[in-house]
């Protein structure tokens, strides 16, 4: 098999990337693999989760020089000063506020890493009181939809009242 990149040398590196079930196969010769910068797990050159992450980030690859970087609007975390460009390079946040300042750009990345963008697990007991109520409301709304489809209107009315009650509870504090 010839290298799919240069189509001259024999392909010696074969690897398969599976991201969220989407399978991509690569057949490259060593020279092209090195040029492509696709460092493959298990080969020399080092490979860490952070390299992989920065590869996943939508960071414009032409933006390498210090001059071209100015062209892109600078997104910066006001809390710790980390820029989005720095984050995309090292694949780590500087502080918890980075999540807020980079918010617009994060969902595609999180979607690719986790297949999801919204937390559904544990909630801290003290800080999370409201969140629990909000989740309960979301659950009830789903039940409400279902009961309307099933034409169980009496149950739907009960659910509606319950939702109103909980919403009032949140807005009061």
């Amino acid at each position, binding site marked *: 098999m010839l290298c799919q990149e240069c189509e001259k040398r024999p392909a010696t590196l074969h690897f398969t990337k599976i991201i969220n079930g989407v399978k991509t196969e690569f057949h490259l010769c060593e020279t092209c693999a090195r040029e492509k910068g696709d460092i493959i797990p298990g080969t020399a050159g080092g490979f860490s989760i952070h390299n992989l992450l920065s590869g996943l980030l939508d960071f414009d690859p032409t933006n390498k020089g210090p001059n071209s970087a100015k062209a892109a609007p600078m997104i910066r975390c006001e809390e710790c000063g980390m820029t989005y460009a720095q984050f995309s390079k090292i694949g780590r*946040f*500087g502080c*918890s506020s980075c999540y807020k300042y980079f918010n617009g750009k994060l969902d595609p990345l999180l979607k690719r890493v*986790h*297949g*999801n963008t*919204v937390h559904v*697990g544990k909630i801290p007991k003290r*800080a999370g009181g409201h*969140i629990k109520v909000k989740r309960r409301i979301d659950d009830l709304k789903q039940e409400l939809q279902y009961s309307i489809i099933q034409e169980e209107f009496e149950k739907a009315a009960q659910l509606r009242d319950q939702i109103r009650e909980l919403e009032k509870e949140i807005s009061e504090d």
Partner: protein
Amino acid sequence: MSNLRFTEQPLSEWMRRRGNDSDIVISSRIRVARNLQHIPFPMLATNQQSEEVLNRLNEVLKSNALQPFGTFHLVRMSSLDELDKRVLVEKHLVSPDLAGESRNGAVLLNDQESVSIMINEEDHLRIQCLYPGFQIREAWKLASAIDDAFEAHVDYAFDDRKGYLTCCPTNVGTGVRASVMMHLPALVMTQQISRILSAVSQVGLAVRGIYGEGSEATGNMFQISNQITLGQSETEIIDNLESVVHQIIQHEKNARERLLAESKVRITDRVMRSYGILSHAAIIDSKEAAQRLSDVRLGIDLGLIQGVPDSVMNELNVMTQPGFLQKYFHEKMDAGERDMYRAKLIREKLGKTG
């Protein structure tokens, strides 16, 4: 050389107990990543800020909030010499990053060494609970209770949409990494391992060598862990891991039975040769030792080798690591000397029991 209690014994007390399926699943581990509000993550925190993190978390310890979980000891990384740090890493009680480059890095360890709470690693707080055998659910229960104990005293960085906020986007959400260490020699021998491992990666789980990121599997030990931390609840994460691990256990058991049924002489030859080499060799490097120990462990599991308790195998896995070896013989050694002392140690250990 310091006299830190946690680096004296190769086997943590928790590893001396036995768990479910402990012939295949060596240990189960939960790691929970948490950060405090309004302080930059350890990577960007100033010396003063990371000191504050350490003090605030140490306050929690002093308040006796951790008492239900055992007696804890605070160990600062700066108080340890290189060898002690290395031994703690080899025993999986601290991560290489905490030992290597942390600022005001510390660890809270309980007497059984079954709980290791790292401070100022990649995140401010990393709660790690270890159980022998296949007990991932128990490990999560304990980790979650310890998490609650901290949360009663400190404010965590939490967002109602993104969950627990972590330094690395691969941990955000639950901050939970559930992992099991598995010994899978029969799947490796019958060349089914790559098929199984690629199937595992398709259901959102990761497979690594035993010393975590970036190292290959030695001695047929594989660590299986969840990749996804956002959009799945802790229970879903554990259910998913548990069901996949159950299947891998079944495949390994089947492969072992087939090996015994179809090639008993060959497999006996292989484990007895390895047993012979370990019992008599004068020089052995760590890679060969890991492979031979894996063979002997399989021999014990299959009933081909008798009289060697599997705790000795667990003990040797740690003792034959470079750091512990030097600790044990109280000597600084180069690689060549280590290979000699390693062989000596293994001979002694197997001789005593065999």
